[in-house]
C-alpha cells in the first residue's frame, strides 16, 4: 500500500523536472519564476486542504498566517539593531552568531538577524499565534467559525496596514536573500532561478509526502471522522479538540513556511498578502480541487496561481476567482477533478431542470 501511495510523489517529481526542461527548451525560463512562487502558495493550499477538506474546519484567515510568517522573517532580517548594539541582549545575540553585520545600499552600518534565525523565529511565532487563536476559535462551528477566522484575518491585515514598524501600506522591501547551503540561497536573482525552482518544489514534494502519509494514517482517519460526525468521533475516543487544534496549527505552519520563503524570494512583502481576498482565493482553490482531494488542490493551486501571476486574467483577477468559486460550489461541490462530476456533465441540463420543480 505504501508503495502505491508513493507513486504520485514520484510522478510529481518527474513532472517538476519535465517542466523545467520544457521551459528551458522553449526559451521561457521566466516561467520558472512564477512556478516557484506558485509552489510556495501551494504550501498554503495543501495545508488548508487538510484543515478544510479532511477535518471539515473552514478558515477564511489563512492569508493571515502566510503574512505573519513572511512579515516576521522580513522584519527581523531588515530591522537595524546597529543603534542598540551596545545593549546586553543584542550583544549576547551577536556573540551567539544569530546576528549579521553589514552595510546597506548607502553604506550605513547595519546589524540584522540572520535569515535562518529569522525563518525559525517566524515559524515559531506563527505556530504560537495559531495555537492561541485556534484554541478558542475551533470550539465554534459553521458560520461562527467562518466569521471568527475571517475576523482574525482582518485583524492581521489591519495591523500590518496600520503599523509603521512594518512599513504600513508599503510593506517591507529590500529583504535580503536567505542563504541555505553551498551557494544556494532563496532569492529572486535570475542566476539562481533554476535552483530556486527546485528548492520550492522540493519543499512542496516534501510536504506532499508527509501529508499523504498523514491522511492515510490513524490520525488522518480520526480527522475525517471529525469531519463526518464530530460527536461520534468523540465517542470513539478521538480527542476532537486536540486533533482540530493540531491540524489548524500544522496548516498555519505550512502557510507560514510558504510566506517566509516567498518573502525572501520576492525580497519584500506587502499588506495585500494578508488581505481577505487572498484568504478567499485559497479557499476557492481548495474547493476547486475538490475539498478532500490533496492532489486536486495542488494541481488547481499551481494552475490558477500560475495563470494569475502571469497576469492572464488581467484586471479581472478577482472576478475570475469569484466566478470559479461560484460555479464550482453550484455545479461540482466535490471539485472538478472527481469522477462523479465528469460523469454528471452530460446531465447538466437535468440539474438546471430542477429549478422548475416546486
Amino acid at each position, binding site marked *: 500500500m505504501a508503495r502505491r501511495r508513493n507513486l504520485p510523489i514520484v510522478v510529481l517529481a518527474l513532472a517538476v523536472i519535465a517542466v523545467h526542461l520544457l521551459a528551458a527548451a522553449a526559451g521561457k525560463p521566466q516561467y520558472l519564476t512564477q512556478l516557484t512562487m506558485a509552489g510556495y502558495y501551494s504550501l498554503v493550499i495543501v495545508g488548508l486542504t487538510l484543515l478544510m477538506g479532511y477535518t471539515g474546519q473552514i478558515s477564511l484567515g489563512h492569508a493571515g498566517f502566510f503574512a505573519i510568517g513572511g512579515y516576521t522573517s522580513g522584519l527581523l532580517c531588515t530591522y537595524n539593531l546597529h543603534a542598540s548594539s551596545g545593549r546586553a541582549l543584542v550583544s549576547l545575540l551577536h556573540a551567539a552568531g544569530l546576528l549579521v553585520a553589514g552595510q546597506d545600499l548607502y553604506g550605513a552600518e547595519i546589524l540584522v538577524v540572520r535569515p535562518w534565525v529569522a525563518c525559525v523565529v517566524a515559524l515559531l511565532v506563527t505556530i504560537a499565534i495559531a495555537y492561541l487563536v485556534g484554541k478558542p476559535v475551533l470550539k465554534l462551528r459553521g458560520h461562527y467559525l467562518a466569521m471568527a477566522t475571517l475576523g482574525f484575518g482582518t485583524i492581521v491585515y489591519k495591523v500590518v*496596514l*496600520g503599523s509603521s514598524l512594518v512599513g*504600513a*501600506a*508599503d510593506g517591507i522591501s529590500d529583504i535580503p536573500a536567505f542563504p541555505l547551503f553551498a551557494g544556494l540561497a532563496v532569492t529572486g536573482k535570475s542566476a539562481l532561478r533554476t535552483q530556486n525552482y527546485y528548492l520550492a518544489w522540493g519543499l512542496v514534494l516534501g510536504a506532499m509526502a508527509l501529508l499523504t502519509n498523514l491522511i492515510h494514517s490513524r490520525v488522518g482517519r480520526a480527522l475525517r471522522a471529525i469531519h463526518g460526525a464530530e460527536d461520534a468521533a468523540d465517542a470513539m475516543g478521538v480527542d476532537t479538540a486536540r486533533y482540530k487544534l493540531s491540524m489548524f496549527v500544522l496548516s498555519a505552519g505550512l502557510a507560514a513556511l510558504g510566506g517566509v520563503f516567498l518573502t525572501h524570494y520576492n525580497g519584500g512583502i506587502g499588506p495585500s498578502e494578508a488581505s481577505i481576498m487572498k484568504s478567499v482565493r485559497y479557499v476557492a482553490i481548495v474547493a476547486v480541487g475538490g475539498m478532500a482531494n490533496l492532489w486536486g488542490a495542488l494541481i488547481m493551486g499551481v494552475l490558477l496561481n500560475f495563470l494569475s501571476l502571469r497576469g492572464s486574467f488581467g484586471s479581472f483577477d478577482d472576478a475570475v476567482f469569484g466566478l470559479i468559486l461560484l460555479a464550482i460550489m453550484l455545479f461540482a461541490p466535490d471539485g472538478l477533478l472527481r469522477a462523479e462530476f465528469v460523469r454528471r456533465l452530460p446531465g447538466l441540463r437535468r440539474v438546471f431542470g430542477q429549478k422548475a420543480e416546486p
Partner: protein
Amino acid sequence: MGISKIGLVSSNTGFGKAGKEQVEKAAPGFGIQIVANEVYEKEATDLTAVVTKLKAANVQAFINWSIEPAQAIVIKNARQVGLSVPIFQSHGFGNIQYAKAAGPAAEGVIFPASRLLVADSLPASDKQKPVLLKYKQSYEARYHEDASTFGGHAHDALLLLGKAVEKAGALDKEKVRAALESLQGVVGTAGVFNFSARDHGGLGMDAFEMQTVKNGKFVVYSDTAAKK
C-alpha cells in the same frame, strides 16, 4: 497665514503614507508643529470622530493627504462639526469628482495641481495652454467626463516616450534611454519637462499651481500672501 499648529490626516495607502512622511519631514523647517496626526481607512464611511480629534487639538489648519474618495468625506465632516480652518489637500484632489462629492464643503480647499484643471482660465500667453486645451477637449469628447490630472500623466508618459524614440531614431533600449534623459522643454499636461541624467522627474516646482475650489470649479488660488 501665520499658521504654526496643523493637523495631518492621510489615508492608509502608499500614496497617503508617502505624503504623510514628507509632510512630517518638512513641517519643522517651516516652524510648523503637527499636533494631530491620523491615518484613516481608504474605505472609511464616516470620519466625524477623526475630525473631532483635530478639532480637539485646536489646529489652525489641516492637511488631508489621500487619493481615495474618503478624502471628500474628511472635508465634509470637518465642515459639519464646525471645524472651519483652512484645508490643504494633495494633488490627489485633482479630480473634480471629489470636489463634486464634497459639494459646498469643498469650497475653499487649497491644493497644488498641474494647470490642466484650470486650463480654460489660463492667460493666452501660457505656453502650456494649447496642449492642455487639446488634451482636455479630446478627453472629454471621448469619455464624457471631466479630465483629471491622472489621465494626463499617462498622456505625458506616452508623449515623452514617443519624443525619445523619435530623437533616438531607433528602438535600441540604450539609445532611447539616453534620448529620454536629454529631452528638454517638452510641454505636457503636467508641466514643461526638462530631463537630465540626474533628474528623472523632469518637472520643476513651477509645474504645480496652487488651486482652490470656487462655486464647484477648480480655479487658481490667487491670494499670493497665503503661499508659505
